[in-house]
């Protein structure tokens, strides 16, 4: 009856839902205080104490119920499903689903792309966010600028995908381009300007990136070789990981440099950007970076404002220039916040589904794990492999989960 009119249905739900919640809390408290443990008679004192022991659980029950059934139970159920096969009527098949998944090229493509996303998106968003935070804090119309950069946060991934599809749009060569990227691309003709903008500038950026990576990696690795430092054993894997990852990134950027100088650019031909393998990943990442930079900026800007002014004043008195103040005084003091922003964006990246689904649906080598999983679950109807890939996402999230819980517990003490 109500299903005929969704708006009415929604309204009735709000009334019933909210009413039921409030009613539950009120009545359960009432029953507890007057029926089960009445605060009168010979056992009044003991009853009050008992009621107060039960009451927190009354308050917690609906939330705990929702968390258990909708978040905790599915983790284990998904783990179980990943070890069974739907077509065999849910029989236990051990690691078969994982084995099948590992043999698929599409899975490894998704893993490789996800790694790329995990490195590029948090790094670029945080860097842009830090830059925007620092710059906007120094000018009068900074708040307006902040709210405009923050705005994409409110736009859905799907909406953002449409926005960027228009930017990447391609028309045949003899028509006016309506996508900005192609319009800009066609204005390059291979002359000096093109060499400067498309080869020299990216080379400088790549070299700078490689330099930063090398520096960060060295910071982590040097403690292994240096003596007399803190050599706690459990940090060793992290240090090695950062070192190896750093080397890989340097290799990637240097080989990119080679590509810049030794490949021919197809000047004058409109490109279908989303179908160019490898590069299309970056075009998709730009969408998420565009959305997440505002988030990083807002949080880092608050952290920058929290820096004690004395430290900055002292640096100025000592003759530090603005760059030194920023990198040597401010950034070290907000390192904790930078890590929080980084991990939060990392979590978003791991779950990114809508952008890939709406823009390429994983074609042209742009698959990511979340979309791969959706594909398996709802198109191939293979719940086993789908669950297995969900477990892979969970595994990737787990280090952050442990780190967060560890920090939360440390704070509460």
């Amino acid at each position: 009856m109500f299903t005929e009119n969704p708006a009415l249905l929604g309204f009735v739900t709000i009334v019933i839902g909210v009413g039921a919640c409030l009613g539950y809390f009120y009545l359960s408290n009432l029953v507890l205080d007057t029926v089960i443990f009445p605060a009168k008679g010979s056992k009044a004192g003991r009853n009050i104490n008992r009621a107060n022991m039960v009451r927190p659980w009354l308050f917690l029950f609906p939330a705990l119920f929702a968390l258990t059934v909708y978040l905790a139970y599915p983790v284990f159920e998904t783990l179980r499903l990943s070890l069974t096969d739907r077509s065999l009527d849910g029989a236990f098949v051990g690691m078969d689903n994982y084995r099948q998944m590992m043999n698929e090229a599409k899975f490894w493509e998704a893993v490789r792309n996800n790694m790329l996303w995990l490195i590029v998106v948090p790094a670029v968003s945080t860097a842009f966010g830090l830059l925007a935070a620092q710059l906007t804090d120094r000018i009068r119309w900074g708040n307006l600028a902040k709210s405009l950069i923050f705005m994409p946060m409110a736009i859905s991934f799907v909406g953002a995908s449409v926005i960027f599809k228009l930017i990447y749009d391609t028309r045949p060569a003899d028509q006016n381009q309506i996508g900005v990227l192609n319009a800009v691309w066609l204005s390059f003709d291979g002359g000096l300007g093109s060499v400067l903008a498309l080869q020299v500038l990216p080379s400088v950026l790549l070299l700078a990136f490689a330099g930063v990576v090398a520096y960060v990696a060295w910071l982590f690795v040097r403690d292994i070789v240096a003596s007399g430092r803190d050599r706690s054993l459990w940090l060793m894997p992290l240090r090695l990981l950062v070192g190896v990852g750093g080397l890989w990134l340097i290799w990637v950027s240097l080989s990119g440099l080679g590509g810049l100088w030794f490949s021919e650019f197809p000047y004058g031909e409109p490109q279908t950007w989303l179908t160019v393998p490898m590069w299309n990943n970056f075009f998709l990442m730009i969408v998420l970076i565009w959305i997440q930079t505002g988030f990083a900026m807002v949080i880092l800007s608050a952290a920058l404002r929290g820096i004690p002014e004395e430290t900055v004043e002292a640096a100025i008195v000592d003759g530090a220039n603005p760059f030194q103040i920023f990198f040597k005084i401010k950034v070290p003091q907000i390192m904790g916040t930078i890590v929080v922003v980084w991990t939060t964006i990392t979590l978003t990246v791991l779950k990114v589904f809508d952008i890939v689904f709406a823009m390429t649906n994983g074609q042209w080598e742009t698959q990511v794990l979340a979309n791969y999983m959706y594909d398996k679950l709802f198109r191939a109807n293979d719940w086993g492999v789908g669950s297995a890939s969900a477990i892979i996402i969970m595994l990737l999230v787990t280090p952050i989960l442990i780190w967060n819980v560890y920090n939360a517990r440390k704070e509460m003490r």
Partner: protein
Amino acid sequence: MASIAGKKSGLTWAVQLSVAALVLLWLFPTVGLFVSSFRSADQISSSGWWAALFPSEQSEVYRTADPDDTRVPDGDGFVVTGNIFEDAPRDILSWGVSSRDIAAFRPGETADMKDGEQLTLQPDGSYEWRGSADQLKGRGQRIFVTATVPPEFSLSNYETILFSGSGQDNMAKAFFNTLTVTIPATIIPIVIAAFAAYALAWMEFPGRALLIAAVVALLVVPLQLALIPLLRLHLEIGIGKGYLGVWLAHTAFGMPLAVYLLRNYMVGLPRDIIENAKVDGATDFQIFTRIILPLSFPALASFAIFQFLWTWNDLLVAKVFLIDSTGSTTVMTNQIVELLGTRGGNWEILATAAFVSIAVPLLVFFSLQRFLVRGLLAGSVK
């Protein structure tokens, strides 16, 4: 910061310019979509949206009225008069009568064609075409005009998307479906989470620390893991796919953040107020509804905004728990994805549909930004 030392930084201008560049870069994509939503299909496919903001130079072909009906005797021959711009006047730069030389004349000049045939075009578009009976017959004379065209925008795309469009092109139903999903899914978790947060913040009981840690852990569990088990559960207990399922799912998925945000806020409320109330004989239920809830308004508002934006913009949860094969409960995000598939080149439809769906979150964002920022800071900066 440099002003502390008593000298104005020389970098100020560079900073102003870089911020302006950054803001423009960040606005540019959205503005593109916004402008495109006011252009017709022809306009969108003939030029980039950035060209639409300025008067543009365009070459167009017009034809005079057909001489057989409209010519009038004049001296030795005939004349046809009229105006080529019937409804939209243009600023003529140059014109011509042959496709080989479309910019031969300036407005006001007279073109001498063969054997005394003449055509005069005035700057306002009115023309006089003179000639003999042989020359002025058949179809009207072609006139090639190069003119500046003022920017033209219309609301007709919005009319199509919101009212007159049929089938997939009409977003009205999806708009209300989205609203139906969003509002209960925003309000109900707040009520449930507020009670739990109060218990975790101000009630003493064994296992409290463990529960808080569990909430922090669940905060990062990807909801991808929940899809299949919950869909199976919903199908088993008879909820199936529908609004009830999606409300429950959104309520639960928003719960960790809600409990976490609200608990952090409530813990910071002054202890004196609560203890005084207890001494005066208030029950926990009264303390919660009369003191804690009103004081926690900012935190409640921030979570409400988060949850609203998240449920409004969501695609995955709606696809899994709500939208069945009939598609009658589709939400806007899903409809846009379908439009991307079927109407990929029809930018007037796509841009308008996307803008309709992002207009509401943008409105919420700009009017309630204060609370959103506060919530973000409470949620992540520790």
